Every structure is written in structure tokens, then in C-alpha cells.
């Protein structure tokens, strides 16, 4: 990835997103929120508010730069590799799926490796992988500025497939760009670290869910005496 590309991609595109976002949110209720919160709020269940594009793109690009390193590539190791093999069959199958998602995203967008935790109803959006694949790694692709945060997934890795990301170095040859990215640029250390954080977040959530459920049950059992049954014996109550 050439210096020219970085100068434009980071120095102009990314910078513009940040500057425009700041202009848009100054003095509004979004000012002072964390970037992730701005993204989720302005996604507005798919009916995006104006700051969404800039906010999401600012986040996406930061995430993208950090997903790469000089001398990157190779294969992941440890738990990340285990999970990849568990959820995709093999590292090569994962590679195929990721490359294919990146190549087939029509128009501008991103391809992601994400960690999906237990949530069917993601409130804010339509969950692309409901139920079955819980607490698993998934490959997803998104258009324009959308990112997996809006589906409450934990992104682990991304590749920018907007044309500005590869046109100077590869012209229209997107598949070459994707291959080079996976072979020479991807920083698996960062991805592993993100996986740790994602799992911790999922575990914490689970514990909170359980605690909340227990609290609800306790409340219910207190109410039992007050409930009136229309028919049947009171002795048949739960």
C-alpha cells in the first residue's frame, strides 16, 4: 500500500470525515458522546441521521489502519486460530469466505471478521445472522459506511473496499488488493487482542443478563400472593 495512497486515504479522506463530523455535532446532544455511541444513535434503526456517515467512516478508518502493520500477514495463532477453525472449518475456508465477501461487496463498503455474541434482537437494526450462530466468528460485508457495531457485533478485522482504498495501487483489480492485504498487511496480533476484548464483553453481558433474570424472578415470586386466578385452584399456582 503506497505512501501516495496513505497520504490521500488517511490525509484527505479520513481527515475530512473527522473534520466534517466535528462540524456537524458541535453544540448538539451528540457532542461529548463516545464515537461508538454517536454511531449507534445516528444509525437510528437504518434511518440514518446526517452525522452517521462521517462518524461511522471516522471509526471505520481508524479501525482499518490499526488492522494492518508493516510485515503483516501470515496466519493467526492461539485462540483466534482455534475459533477460526471451529467456525469456518479451516483457516483457508475462512480466507476464501472473507476474500469473497470483500470482492462481492457491490459499490462502496467494507468486509469484516466479527465476533457475534448472544443477541437476537439488536434493537437498532436488522441482525444479519440471527439465532444459530451465537458466540461465533462470522464474516459480514456492509455497504458505504455501515459497520457491525450497529448490529451489536464486535468487529475484529476489516478491509476497506471503497475504490479510493485501492485504486491508486491496483486500479480496478480489487481481488489482487484483497489478496495482498491478507498476505502482507493484516495484523493478527491486533485481531487477537480485539477477540479477547470481545469475549470479555460477551461474558460480562451474560453475567448481567443472568443477574437481571434472577432479580426478575425474585420480584415475581413476591407478587404471587397478590395474583388472582380466574379459574383453577390456587394450589395449582407455579
Amino acid at each position: 500500500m503506497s505512501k501516495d495512497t496513505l497520504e490521500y486515504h488517511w490525509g484527505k479522506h479520513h481527515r475530512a470525515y473527522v473534520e466534517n463530523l466535528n462540524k456537524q455535532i458541535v453544540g448538539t446532544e451528540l457532542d461529548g458522546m463516545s464515537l461508538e455511541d454517536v454511531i449507534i444513535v445516528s444509525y437510528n434503526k437504518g434511518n440514518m441521521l446526517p452525522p452517521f456517515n462521517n462518524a461511522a467512516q471516522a471509526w471505520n478508518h481508524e479501525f482499518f489502519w490499526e488492522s494492518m502493520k508493516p510485515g503483516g500477514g501470515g496466519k493467526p495463532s492461539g485462540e483466534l486460530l482455534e475459533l477460526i477453525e471451529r467456525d469456518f472449518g479451516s483457516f483457508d475456508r475462512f480466507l476464501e469466505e472473507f476474500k469473497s465477501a470483500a470482492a462481492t461487496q457491490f459499490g462502496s463498503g467494507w468486509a469484516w471478521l466479527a465476533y457475534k455474541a448472544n443477541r437476537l434482537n439488536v434493537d437498532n437494526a436488522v441482525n444479519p445472522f440471527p439465532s444459530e450462530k451465537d458466540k461465533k466468528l462470522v464474516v459480514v460485508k456492509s455497504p458505504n459506511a455501515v459497520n457491525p457495531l450497529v448490529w451489536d457485533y464486535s468487529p475484529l478485522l476489516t478491509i476497506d473496499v471503497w475504490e479510493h482504498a485501492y485504486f491508486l495501487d491496483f486500479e480496478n483489480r480489487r481481488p489482487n488488493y484483497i489478496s495482498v492485504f491478507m498476505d502482507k498487511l493484516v495484523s493478527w496480533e491486533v485481531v487477537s487482542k480485539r477477540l479477547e476484548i470481545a469475549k470479555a464483553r460477551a461474558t460480562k453481558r451474560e453475567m448481567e443478563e443472568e443477574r437481571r433474570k434472577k432479580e426478575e424472578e425474585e420480584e415475581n415470586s413476591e407478587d404471587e400472593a397478590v395474583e388472582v386466578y380466574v379459574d383453577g385452584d390456587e394450589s395449582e399456582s407455579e
Partner: protein
Amino acid sequence: MGSVTCNPLAPPSTHLLLNPSKIPKFCHSRRQLHGSQRASKIIAYYGLKTPPYKLDALEPYMSKRTLEVHWGELHRGYVEGLNKHLAKDDVLYGYTLDELVKVSYNSGNPLPVFNNAVQVWNHDFFWESMQPGGGDIPKYGVLEQIEKDFGSFTNFKEKFIGAALTLFGSGYVWLVLKREERRLAVVKTSNAINPLVWNDIPIISLDMWEHAYYLDYKNDKGTYANVFMNHLVSWNAAMSRMARAEAFVNLGEPKIPIA
């Protein structure tokens, strides 16, 4: 857009078999002779239409390299993708490209062939929306209609360039004749969407996918859009498209007979 209907029900035409050079460039019938009992399989293919100028004719406003990549590789890729779809699916036989676009759009639930078909259409239209020595302002009927519907040519130009600058992601900006409202409008569309699917009539288009301008202008969409307006847009093409559109849309005052 230069496509010819291939009618699969046409009677066997021996001159096509004997004279392959007579087959129209963009529609090519191939019949497999499996003996008289079997129904013959006719497959319609599309060809890559060349722009009406040489690839370096738009310099310095649009470089030869851009044309080589944009037309020679991307547009060609869409044509090849379209033909691959057509080879697989006989439901798609016999449509003109216009019809194919509308049908495969499927009211917003596009069939797999849509992206390729519409991008072929879009690029054919885009090349023809430009010419060497283009720009300047339109004349006669087109200018009158623009002034009627936008107030002034300057106002229209501002709206058009504004649309180009505010389009997020990939897409196109169009000057379109709206059928129902019977007026011109500036419309921006995402990805490959095209006003044909809303039954409107495109007059001019500007490709705002990054691949259209990145080699020449990098991220400077403003300069690209202005250069298009000032030096590339073909008002001649717009004129002929308007003339054709008026066969379908009545732009004149209704003629009220004097009692």
C-alpha cells in the same frame, strides 16, 4: 443505447449462418444444430460498445488511462458478467437492454443479473453523455426546458454539481425528464440504480463511482464535476435524447381548441 432485440421466435435465418460478418455487432444469435427434432437454443449476447471517440480524446479532462481502465476493464467486465448470466438463464432471452434493466430491477428486489445489466446500460449512456470539446451551454429546446424547470442554466448547473458533491458512496448524478411531472429534474442515485426503473427518461449522466475520477482527480470530486460540466458534457447527445423523449412525454401546453 445501441442494443438490438434478439427475437428468439424469429424464423431461422440462413443468411446469418452463412455470413457471420453480417451479424449485428451487439446482438449475435447462435443456433445449435442438434437435428430437426430438438428445439434449437438461441442465446442473445451483448457486445462491448465503444465510446464515440478515441480513448485519449477527452484529455486533459479525462485521461486515456482512466478510459482504458474504466471502459476497457470495468465496463468490459460488466458486459462479460451480463453474458454469463444470459448464458445460464433462458428467462432473460429476447429483452432489449432497457427492458432487461426494468425487469431485473423487479420493483426493488433485484435479480442477480441486474447489477451487470444496469451497469452496462449506465456506462454506454455515460460515454455518450460526453464528447471532446463538450461543455458550454445547451441550445434551443434543451436550454428552454432547463430554463423553464430550473429558472436558469446556472441554477441547474449548481444543483447538478451540488448533487455530485453530496452523493455518499458510489452512484450517479442524472439530468432526467420526469414522465409524470413532465419536467426536468436533477436526481442522484446510489450504486447502479438508474431512473429507468422509475420509468423516467435520463438525459445526461455523471458517473460518481470513485473509479471514474480517482486516477485523474483523486478525492477532488468538486473539480471533477466542474470539469465535466465545463468541458465534457455533450449537449448534442442531450438534444437527441430530449427529442426522442418528447415522443413519449408531452411537454407542450395542452392545445385547447378555440370554440
